């Protein structure tokens, strides 16, 4: 209490000013920080995803603790116009707007102006003009945009896009093209995948393409940039005065040439850029559609992604059991030299995050010449990760079979492996049925991690749809119902399997 009073006394004029502002406009919900709060705190918190890469916001390769990029400088200039300091807030790109009003005052990260965004957030006047550029390998037969209309040598062209970006919207809109659109969380990931021949091409903002041109010498732009648009700064609708202040500050930066000077320094100030900036008028307002329309539109997409969730679970889990059981048997009864390796396998897979394992399978294997399709990498990754847990369960199950069972089998002249196969393992399988079943449901939900390697399953589809439509709560309910509708029959299925196993062993010991 006392130190706060002292500080208040120390800066009385500013405090009085803030009090007047507070009286003028009491915040409606008290969540979002209005202009006065920003000024009082002396910081403008702006959100971006540093993983998105240059030239927007990226880690300085010379000083890895420092962030640089034209948007970093823009944020600092805007903050200076408001008389405060800029503070960076990290977030995952497609979820950045959700930070508004909670952890951030504004989002400055290459968000394209779209009617949907204008409906749900306050969008500033444009600060940057972009076009979309297709990028492919130099040795690719893809030589123009028009070539996408015909299938490539390996079927439809596989084109990577940043999930939720204008490039994705553009690609999904173009039903005339023979393309399979693959969503990524980062544009550099896309370029890596083109280089590794997993993708045929990537569609991205031209400034990102030219920024990365040197690093990806094997790649080249295909055709001319097209279908441009502008970037806008997003603020929460509950902070109209903050939004207006940022918009005014941006206007001053444009008119007095400081923005152009910034873009000159970053080699981004083409004539087209400046004309688009000047001409880009107000964003047309959009209406909020009815709930029925929303569900009609979203449900087919959600259902298709739910199918992917099921495919991932039922393909990976039997594999996990098979590997897990083999590892467990090997650790208990295998040759002594093998046991440390199997223990290492289990510790490695249990001790590292599933996400990291998926990244390794999908992004690192292509570097050694083994490019797995995303869905194969996802199934393999889930199977390996869960096999570690299954092997521990089966190991416990095998140990729980009384020692007399093994002795009885051996005394009848069975070999070790015959005893395992006909006596020990069938009993262990029965003992561990309950934990294995609950692991299956855990894996079923863990499939959502696969979105990290571009597999679009239910959760990812939800987050993309929720973000592009702004109907976060409604779609969350639909998605949760879909998950329940799937996990309920899945647990019925496991119970049926459990019973079938009981009956089978009564009839046939083999």
């Amino acid at each position, binding site marked *: 209490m006392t130190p706060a009073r002292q500080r208040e006394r120390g800066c009385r004029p500013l405090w009085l000013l803030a009090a007047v502002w507070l009286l003028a406009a009491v915040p409606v919900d008290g969540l979002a920080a209005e202009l006065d709060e920003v000024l009082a705190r002396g910081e403008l918190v702006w959100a971006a995803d540093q993983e998105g890469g240059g030239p927007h916001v990226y880690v300085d390769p010379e000083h890895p603790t420092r962030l640089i990029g034209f948007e970093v400088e823009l944020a600092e200039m805007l903050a200076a116009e408001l008389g405060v300091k800029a503070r960076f807030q990290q977030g995952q790109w497609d979820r950045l707007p959700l930070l508004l009003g909670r952890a951030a005052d504004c989002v400055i990260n290459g968000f394209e102006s779209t009617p949907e965004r204008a409906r749900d957030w306050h969008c500033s006047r444009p600060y940057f003009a972009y076009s979309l550029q297709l990028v492919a390998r130099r040795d690719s037969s893809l030589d123009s945009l028009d070539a996408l209309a015909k299938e490539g040598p390996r079927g439809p062209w596989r084109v990577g896009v940043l999930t939720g970006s204008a490039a994705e919207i553009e690609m999904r809109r173009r039903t005339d093209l023979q393309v399979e659109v693959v969503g990524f969380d980062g544009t550099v990931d896309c370029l890596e995948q083109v280089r590794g021949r997993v993708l045929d091409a990537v569609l991205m903002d031209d400034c990102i393409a030219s920024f990365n041109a040197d690093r990806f010498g094997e790649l080249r732009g295909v055709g001319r940039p097209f279908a441009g648009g502008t970037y806008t700064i997003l603020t929460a609708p509950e902070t109209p005065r903050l939004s207006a202040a940022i918009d005014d500050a941006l206007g001053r930066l444009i008119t007095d040439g400081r923005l152009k000077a910034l873009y000159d320094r970053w080699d981004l100030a083409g004539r087209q850029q400046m004309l688009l900036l000047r001409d880009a008028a107000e964003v047309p307002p959009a209406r909020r559609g009815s709930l029925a329309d929303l569900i009609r539109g979203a449900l087919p997409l959600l259902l298709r992604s739910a199918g992917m969730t099921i495919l991932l679970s039922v393909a990976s889990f039997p594999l996990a059991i098979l590997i897990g059981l083999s590892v467990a048997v090997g650790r208990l009864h295998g040759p002594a030299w093998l046991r440390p390796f199997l223990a290492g396998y289990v510790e490695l897979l249990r001790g590292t995050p599933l996400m990291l394992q998926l990244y390794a399978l999908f992004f690192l294997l292509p570097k050694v010449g083994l490019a797995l399709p995303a869905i194969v990498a996802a199934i393999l990754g889930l199977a390996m990760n869960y096999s570690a847990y299954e092997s521990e369960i089966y190991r416990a199950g095998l140990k729980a079979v009384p020692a007399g069972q093994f*002795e009885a089998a*051996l005394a*009848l002249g*069975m070999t070790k492996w015959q005893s395992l196969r*006909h006596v020990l393992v069938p*009993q262990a399988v029965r003992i561990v049925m309950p934990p294995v079943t609950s692991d299956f449901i855990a894996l079923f939900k863990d499939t959502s991690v696969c979105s990290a390697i571009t597999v679009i399953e239910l959760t990812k589809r939800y987050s993309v749809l929720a973000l592009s439509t702004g109907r976060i709560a409604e779609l969350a309910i639909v998605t949760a119902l879909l998950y329940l509708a799937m996990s309920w029959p899945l647990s019925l299925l496991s119970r049926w399997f459990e019973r079938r196993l009981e009956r089978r062993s*009564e009839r046939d010991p083999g």
Partner: protein
Amino acid sequence: MIEVDSLAAIRSGNRILDAVTLTVAEGTVTTLVGPSGGGKSTLLRCLNGLETFAEGRVTIAGHKLVAGEHLPRALERVRRDVGMVFQGFNLFPHLSAIDNVTLAPRIVRGVPAPEARRRGLGLLERVGLSRFAEARPATLSGGQQQRVAIARSLAMEPRVMLFDEPTSALDPQMSAEVLDVIVELARGGQTMVVVTHDHGFARRAATQVVELVAGRVHRAGPAAEILGGAGH
């Protein structure tokens, strides 16, 4: 049929069997008696290689076992000719009675399933349990389970049968059921070695009684001589 020569077994530094020598002739019944901890069960388990021994030699049903670790192959050959019945039955709980009996003949000897089943039903008949062929072990009484275990062991047509306190876990009524089956087998000329505390059984069926005390053969001879004439 069985020759045990100067057998010694050491567990955690203690000689729990020492200089044990005995002979079992074909078609005879030998009972191992003596106080608990005298080494009866260990001796029995050395005969089919469930336990190893430090010194001496065992010859059983034409197979030789020597001191130290046994080779898995050699053990499998011995065990095909030597059956064992345990105190705790050790039936396979996930299999029905008939499947318990037919499993080893099918997978070890390669007997075709219908043939194994026909013989298995005959064996269950012999131990008085043909009505329970499809029953799970958990639904059977202790005496019934032990009789299934005997049938399971007989299914391999062993030349020697080893019984490790086969009635110690049973009440007198059930013991009697099991002992009748064993006595019946003995009359049929089955060579067997039985570890037991039941002197009544020893008097009734044993050709030879061997008393083990502190790991050594204390006395050996005909039942009447070792156990005396009257029952306890």
